[in-house]
């Protein structure tokens, strides 16, 4: 494990202001049964508390556009594969520039590697894109097998249960707008009140604003305190955009944004 710590300490010495990684989750004084949580190490002593193993999957790229963190200066991020895809996507959307962030990745089960440039991150990624988890695949297929009434019943109950805490938005690295359309009130696009209609309109808009951008890290679903599978909305659109326009996002620095471009020869089967 010490190569993680030596690598991190070196980065601090080389001028990185903060190592954004994970530390064991703990509740109160008793146990460490909780999953690992994000940790900001800014000194050699704090580096000792860093871990990076199979249990760490929170997407730390969300901190790359948080002004309190960018204010710290050069950052080094522990990057899982979804985190890497998020960084590539953020670079394509001009939110992260070359040199803003370096990453430490898990080359294999024991070794760690430092990637300084976006190009290195891009090459590290190819051939390593993880497929959807089995549980998500099954739940998505189950939904696709339903008819319209059953799907409406499923999502209506979810939108009735949603408390609009916006954890799904805040956990997403690609939801970085200074003023979210849901917060703007001229016009009040999305009702502020957390009733079923307002929640439905919120989740429709969120999914559409991620279409062609979402890198399917699933953090929105994991952040939801009510356990709603909101990530499936974004996953389904990611699959649909890839099927329709042949582009998975967050893989290459030269990729386009499918929903902002077009091809005259795009086809559809429902516009008469």
């Amino acid at each position, binding site marked *: 494990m010490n190569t993680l710590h030596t690598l991190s300490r070196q980065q601090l010495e080389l001028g990185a202001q903060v190592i954004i990684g994970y530390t064991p*989750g*703990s*509740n*109160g*004084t*008793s*146990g460490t*049964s*909780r*999953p690992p*949580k*994000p*940790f*900001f190490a800014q000194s050699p002593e704090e580096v000792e508390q860093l871990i990076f193993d199979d249990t760490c999957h*929170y997407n730390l790229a*969300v*901190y790359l556009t*948080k*002004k*309190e*963190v960018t204010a710290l200066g050069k950052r080094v991020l522990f990057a899982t594969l979804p985190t890497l895809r998020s960084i590539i996507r953020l670079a394509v959307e001009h939110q992260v520039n070359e040199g803003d962030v370096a990453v430490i990745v898990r080359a294999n089960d024991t070794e760690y590697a430092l990637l300084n440039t976006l190009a290195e991150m891009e090459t590290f990624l190819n051939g390593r894109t993880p497929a959807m988890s089995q549980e998500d695949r099954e739940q998505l297929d189950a939904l696709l097998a339903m008819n319209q009434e059953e799907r409406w019943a499923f999502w209506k109950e979810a939108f009735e*249960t949603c*408390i*609009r*805490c*916006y*954890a799904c*938005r*805040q*956990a997403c690295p690609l939801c970085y707008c200074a*003023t979210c359309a849901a*917060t703007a009130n001229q016009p*009040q696009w999305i*009702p*502020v*009140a*957390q*009733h079923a209609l307002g929640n439905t309109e919120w989740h429709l808009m969120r999914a559409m604003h991620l279409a062609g951008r979402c890198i399917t890290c699933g*953090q929105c679903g*994991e*952040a939801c*305190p*009510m*356990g*709603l599978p909101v990530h499936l909305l974004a996953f389904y659109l990611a699959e649909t955009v890839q099927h329709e326009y042949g582009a998975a996002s967050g893989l290459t620095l030269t990729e386009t944004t499918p929903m902002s471009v077009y091809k005259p020869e795009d086809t559809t089967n429902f516009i008469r």
Partner: protein
Amino acid sequence: MPILVKLLQRTSYNSLIEKLLDEFQVYAPVKKGKQVLYERIRAVHDMETDYLLPVLSAKSLVFPPVETLFTFERKKEGVDVLPVAVENLPERVLLGVRPCDARGIAILRQTFAQEPVDAIFEARFNKTILIGLSCATADEACFCGNRAGDTTGSDILLTQVSNGDYLAEIITEKGQRLVERHADLFETPTELPDKAAFVATVRGLDNVENLPALLKAAFDSKVFDQQSLACIGCGTCTYVCPVCSCFDMQDETQGSKGRRVRCWDSCGFSCFTVHTSGHNPRETQGQRWRQRVMHKFSYLPESNHTFGCVGCGRCIRSCPVKLDISQLINQIAHV
């Protein structure tokens, strides 16, 4: 503290619920997907019994996420305004309320009952009977400080004893009236089981008394910025909290008809205090995190002589980035 103590057999509890279902809207913990929530039940078996704590607190019954304040209709010559008819609000009984939730409602009420009295909250509160259930177990997130059998806020508090029966402490007149209406189901045993043996022991915050002063002293320290670096600024901790009562007021219209609603809001959101001019007294997440800590552990103790936290641990369990307020408070106190 309780007016009187009775014994309620397990079977009698079920028949009590049957009877309550005829008289009241009955709410209880219910399993919904992966979560347990206080929801309305139509039969005894709807009630979940294997749960530690519902993900949302019981505050939803007296301070719901969305609540109509009044309705209005815009007409040529003016606007007809119709206050919500609080007398039509339903009478409700909430079963299986955890002591921390009941205590949370009592703390909430201090804010809403201050002058000018919030008539809608008071009406909902007066029409709600809380039948609590002591906690036999706790998890690492709980930190109520050995108040797993606290009667504050409950009208009746049940504690399950060894043979599955319940020790019933009747706390308020509301509780007493209910017991009298169903006196046949309650027994007055000669000697009562020792309640403490059936109630979980739970950690608490250390040196609680001088927390308000310690936190005030740390107001300008960098610890709040440091601790909140990981905070992503969502509203989860405030919405799952039994004591958070911040709300927004919004108008919603359908054609010429509309209503003004009160709905949950969070001091964690970046736009909570922003002025229309763009000036924001709490510009950074560190200032917002400080407000959450100071309000619960310094301002409320000062103004309402009670902490704004019941130690239920929900914010620890639900926080997407696993911030642990019990740990962070201790850290701030030692700055």
